[in-house]
């Protein structure tokens, strides 16, 4: 992205003059205090919002030139783990995880089989028919991660995925995200957890008041746990 700005129309702009590139297969932290613009930046990268200024390119496409249908097609290559999970409470765990495959038009038997496999991978194989409100925060977050990765996205965006879980669960969730990264996905991980960033030593983009303070180093070299 080049010179990207985002202005919601009320108050100060959420992002100002953000310029960065995310190499394929990279793992990048986005850090900053609350209100620094982390979620806004993730929403721009995830094509949930269009920048109000600047240029955004995604997989060789200039996003400004894309129509709604083309944008939807690109979004299917993005997995997103939301800070507040955003699970649909009236659907079971299995149905929530299958959702991206349903959107992609994958046949029922195939999406069910893959969702079961993935839920077993995140240790929720015995909670397939449960509804999200009956799960703990950590379990809900694992469901959200399973949903984000089920379509094998080229880009995984995680917005404070460990913010609402305890340390042990948090480290397990990060382990899951790292496993996906090892399989080739580009990962962008927003957090305000300084210890985590220092511990894993992936490149970091620091935001403050919507502006970038630090550009990631050229060679991403994470310390995997």
């Amino acid at each position, binding site marked *: 992205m080049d010179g990207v700005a985002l202005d919601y129309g009320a108050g100060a702009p959420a992002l100002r003059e953000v310029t960065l590139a995310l190499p394929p297969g990279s793992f990048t932290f986005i850090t900053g205090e609350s209100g620094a613009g982390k979620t806004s930046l993730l929403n721009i990268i995830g094509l949930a919002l269009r920048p109000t200024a600047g240029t955004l390119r995604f997989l060789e496409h200039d996003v400004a030139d894309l129509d709604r249908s083309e944008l939807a097609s690109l979004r299917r290559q993005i997995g997103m783990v939301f800070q507040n999970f955003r699970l649909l409470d009236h659907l079971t765990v299995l149905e929530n995880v299958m*959702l991206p495959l349903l959107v992609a038009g994958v046949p029922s038997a195939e999406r069910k089989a893959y969702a079961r496999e993935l839920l077993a991978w995140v240790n929720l194989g015995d909670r397939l028919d449960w509804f999200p409100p009956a799960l703990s925060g950590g379990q809900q977050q694992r469901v959200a991660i399973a949903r984000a990765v089920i379509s094998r996205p080229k880009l995984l965006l995680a917005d404070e995925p460990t913010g609402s879980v305890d340390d042990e669960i948090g480290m397990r969730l990060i382990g899951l995200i790292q496993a996906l990264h090892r399989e080739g996905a580009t990962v962008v991980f927003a957090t305000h957890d300084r210890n985590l960033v220092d511990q894993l030593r992936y490149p970091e983009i620091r935001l403050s008041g919507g502006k970038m303070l630090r550009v990631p180093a050229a060679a991403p070299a994470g310390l995997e746990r």
Partner: protein
Amino acid sequence: MKGQGRIFRADASSRYLPWVLGLATFLATLSLAALLAVDRTLDRWDNTAAGTITVQIAPSDDPGTDAIRARSIQMKLRADPDVLEAELLSVDQVTDLLAPWLGGAARAGELPLPRVLHVRVRDAGSDTSERLAALVESAAPGTVVDDHRIWRSRLVNYTAWLRGGLALQLVLVLTVSGLTAVFITLSRMTIHREAVRLLHQLGADDSFIAAGLMRQSALSAAAAAAVGFALAASFLFILGQAAAGMDDAFMPLLRLQHLDWIWLAAVPLGLVVLTAVVAGFTARRRLNRLA
């Protein structure tokens, strides 16, 4: 999860839709049934009255003379090129015709009865009618010629208004159903805006989301329309039973034929299709306005 229909959970608005559509189906089915009944009655009037003229020969003191005059007029009419048929009704036939008004008196021969001729003509226009009236008047002064045009024209006028009213009622019911579908779809999109945002983020395009809303609307509409139609059909069946044995020569009765039921069955089907199409169209328009 079999499809996108379940993505949007049931809400207050989706519980309201079946009531409206059930009622709409009931009203629309009855309106259409009434429209069909009126149409059939009008057709019958057309078939029986158009092209016919009734000649009434006033009774005299001597029934024998009346019969001779009637035969003479019949012969004159048959000789006319515009007359296809001139049938002289028997005294019994005339008695039967008058029985509803005169009761037993007509049958008992207490009252003098006119002789009546049913005449089928090539063209029941005013020229033919007036010419034949002059013809019979010359043969038997005081003879009345009735070409049915006046009463038929009044009835046609009346039924045209009735048909218009019923058709308008049908259109209004369909319009209200369509507007309800618009209102409920917009409400549901507001209620489920988070789910809509999530689906967009997961890569769903507008047609996928619209199809989900459309499918759910169609399913709840189908159940409601089936109930509404069943109630209306039961009501029409009871009305049909009540009309059994009644004469519908001058009054539209709700006696339905097989073909009518096919038309009526199209009402719930049409309402379900209308609801689904309107829901899909409304959803797509609203989604298209989102950033």
